Every structure is written in structure tokens, then in C-alpha cells.
């Protein structure tokens, strides 16, 4: 078996988000009552290509009845299998959810996960699994819009202190610690509350969190 590659999924997500945002911006303004999702095929293809380029084998599987997608991580590699009969919009969302899920998979030699079609989740699904899926779905939708700023900044990172930069002096240390706590609290709330997920995605909150982050980061640097 080949050595398992360490993939920086948050970096992959961060690198694909601007392309998705550009794609969205380039779309024509939808006409009133239009139900089609222009650009869905391009988004799905962009996500699939990004995953493939980062070493994730993407397979379209015929015949999946209850599953929208599933993933396997092992010493032979990382693969995601997505139902072949999904519409372009659902396919793009399935890839985005799978990508976000990969960012949450613990670093183990073997792991699997399952994403169910709407209404097909098994009765034995736990509250934790439902909560995780809600977070994955919210983050995937933010990613599809190219709006990662609508989710907590370090949601997918093991340590919220990562990427906060080096502290300078006592005031810098305090700012850095405060920033870390704010990000941790935001991530924790995002995991627990649907209302906070919606609030965090609202425009005023995005502006507020960006400004707080910029202010405290500048002080911490």
C-alpha cells in the first residue's frame, strides 16, 4: 500500500473558494421564477477537479439509492463516491459537502463517512451525526457561494490559534489570546446552534467579525 498523503483540506477549501466566488459573480442575473441553477455544472466540475488535483479519487457511482455520497480514507488513498443520478446543482453540493467532510475527518489510517439523500438518513443516526451534517451543509453552502467569511474562520482547523500570527509584546499576547478565544467560541456556537449558523452568515455579522479579526490581528502582530 502506498503511504497516505497528508492533505491540507482547509487550504484546499480556501484555494477553491475564490474560484467559486468568481464563477458565481460571472453568472447572469436569474430571471424571476427561473428554477434552473445556472453554473451548477461548472461548480461541480471545478470542485471535482480540485479534489482530484489534491489526490482525492472522485467516482460517480450508479445505483446509489439512499446515499448521496460516501468517502473512504485508507492507506490506499482517499476516495469519494457520489451518486451519478444527482442533478448538476445537487452534484456540486455533494462535492462541496464531501470536501468539507474531509476537513473534519480525524487523522486516522482508516475512516469512512456517509452522506444521505434527503429523507434517507437512517433511524439510528445520532444527534451528534445530525449536528455534524448541519455544520457540513452550512459550510458547504458558504463554500459554494465562495463566501467562507460566512463561517467561523477556523472551523475546520484542529487549533484555532493556527494562522493567527506571532504575538508582539504583552498587548500583542493579550490580543492574540482574545482572538483565539473568540474564534473558538464562534466555532463552538456554530456547531451547537442553527440560529448562530444563520446569524454568522448574515452580512452585518460577516462585517463585524472581519473587523474584529483585523483589529485584533493587527494588534497581535
Amino acid at each position, binding site marked *: 500500500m502506498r503511504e497516505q498523503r497528508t492533505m491540507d483540506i482547509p487550504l484546499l477549501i480556501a484555494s477553491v473558494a475564490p474560484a467559486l466566488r468568481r464563477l458565481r459573480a460571472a453568472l447572469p442575473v436569474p430571471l424571476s421564477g427561473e428554477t434552473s441553477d445556472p453554473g451548477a455544472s461548472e461548480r461541480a466540475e471545478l470542485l471535482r477537479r480540485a479534489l482530484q488535483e489534491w489526490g482525492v479519487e472522485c467516482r460517480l457511482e450508479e*445505483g446509489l439509492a439512499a446515499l448521496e455520497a460516501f468517502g*473512504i480514507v485508507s*492507506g490506499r488513498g482517499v476516495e469519494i463516491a457520489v451518486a451519478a443520478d444527482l442533478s448538476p446543482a445537487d452534484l456540486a453540493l455533494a462535492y462541496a459537502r464531501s470536501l468539507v467532510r474531509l476537513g473534519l475527518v480525524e487523522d*486516522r489510517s*482508516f475512516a469512512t463517512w456517509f452522506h444521505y439523500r434527503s429523507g434517507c438518513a437512517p433511524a439510528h443516526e445520532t444527534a451528534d451525526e445530525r449536528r455534524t451534517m448541519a455544520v457540513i451543509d452550512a459550510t458547504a453552502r458558504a463554500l459554494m457561494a465562495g463566501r467562507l467569511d460566512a463561517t467561523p474562520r477556523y472551523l475546520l482547523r484542529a487549533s484555532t490559534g493556527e494562522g493567527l500570527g506571532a504575538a508582539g509584546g504583552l498587548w500583542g499576547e493579550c490580543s492574540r489570546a482574545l482572538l483565539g478565544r473568540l474564534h473558538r467560541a464562534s466555532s463552538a456556537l456554530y456547531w451547537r446552534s442553527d440560529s448562530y449558523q444563520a446569524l454568522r452568515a448574515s452580512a452585518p455579522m460577516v462585517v463585524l467579525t472581519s473587523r474584529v479579526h483585523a483589529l485584533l490581528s493587527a494588534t497581535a502582530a
Partner: protein
Amino acid sequence: MRVAERDTVQAARWEAIRGPVGGRLRRLRGARSQAVLAGDLEDLGYRLSQSSVCRYEQGLVDAPLTLERLVGWALCCESLSAPAFQELLGLAGFRLPWAVTDLMAIDATLRHTRSLPLPDQIVVRRRLLWHLLGLEDTDPEWAS
């Protein structure tokens, strides 16, 4: 050693172990019926009938059991981490490059997928089999 000599040695070895192998295959199957197991194996791409399953368990099959069949059998029985499977690998002289904890995780995944519709189960099992063996059922090396 020439091919004919190797073949004789392997046949003699299989003759010596096929009884104990059969007993362990039976233990792996547990409460699952031979028909269900044969059906599950067929879904994975194996050409094993119910009577073949029966004959393997009774140690009556002349041809040695391949690693592919052994792993497929344990996978369909969700028994990759069972002591009987480890004994089988030892008896047959095979080795799987997987930790027991990983095999336990695969068994747990397989049990989890039992609640899925059959087509989903088959797709997941086929992919897990690939991860275990590195072989697709469309590969020419695939042992039927």
C-alpha cells in the same frame, strides 16, 4: 523448484489445511445462511454458488482458497477482525497489511451499511474490497 513441483507442494499443503480452513470459514459465517453469503459474494463479483460455500466449509474443495476469496468471505461476514480470520490467514500463509484496529473499523462500517438499501451496500462493499485488496472486479488479476 519447477512449476509442477510447486503445484504438487501447494496441493499437498492445501490437502493438509482444507479441513481446519473449512471449520474457520464456518465460524466466520456465524448465523448467516450459506445462501445469503453466496448471494453477497456474487454481488461482489465472485463466482461462488451456495454449494461451493457448503463444500468449502466441509473441506471438500480441491482447489486452494485464494486470498481474494478469503477476504471477500470475511468481508461479507463482517468478520475481518475476527480471530478466526486471522487464524485463516495464518493457515493459508497470507498476510494483509492492515492493523487489527483498521479491520475492526471496516467491520463496523460494514455493519453500519446493513441498514442501507442493497444497491448502496454493494457499492460500498466493492469499494471497501478494493481498499483491502487493491483489485477491481474488472481487473484481469481478479480471481473468479
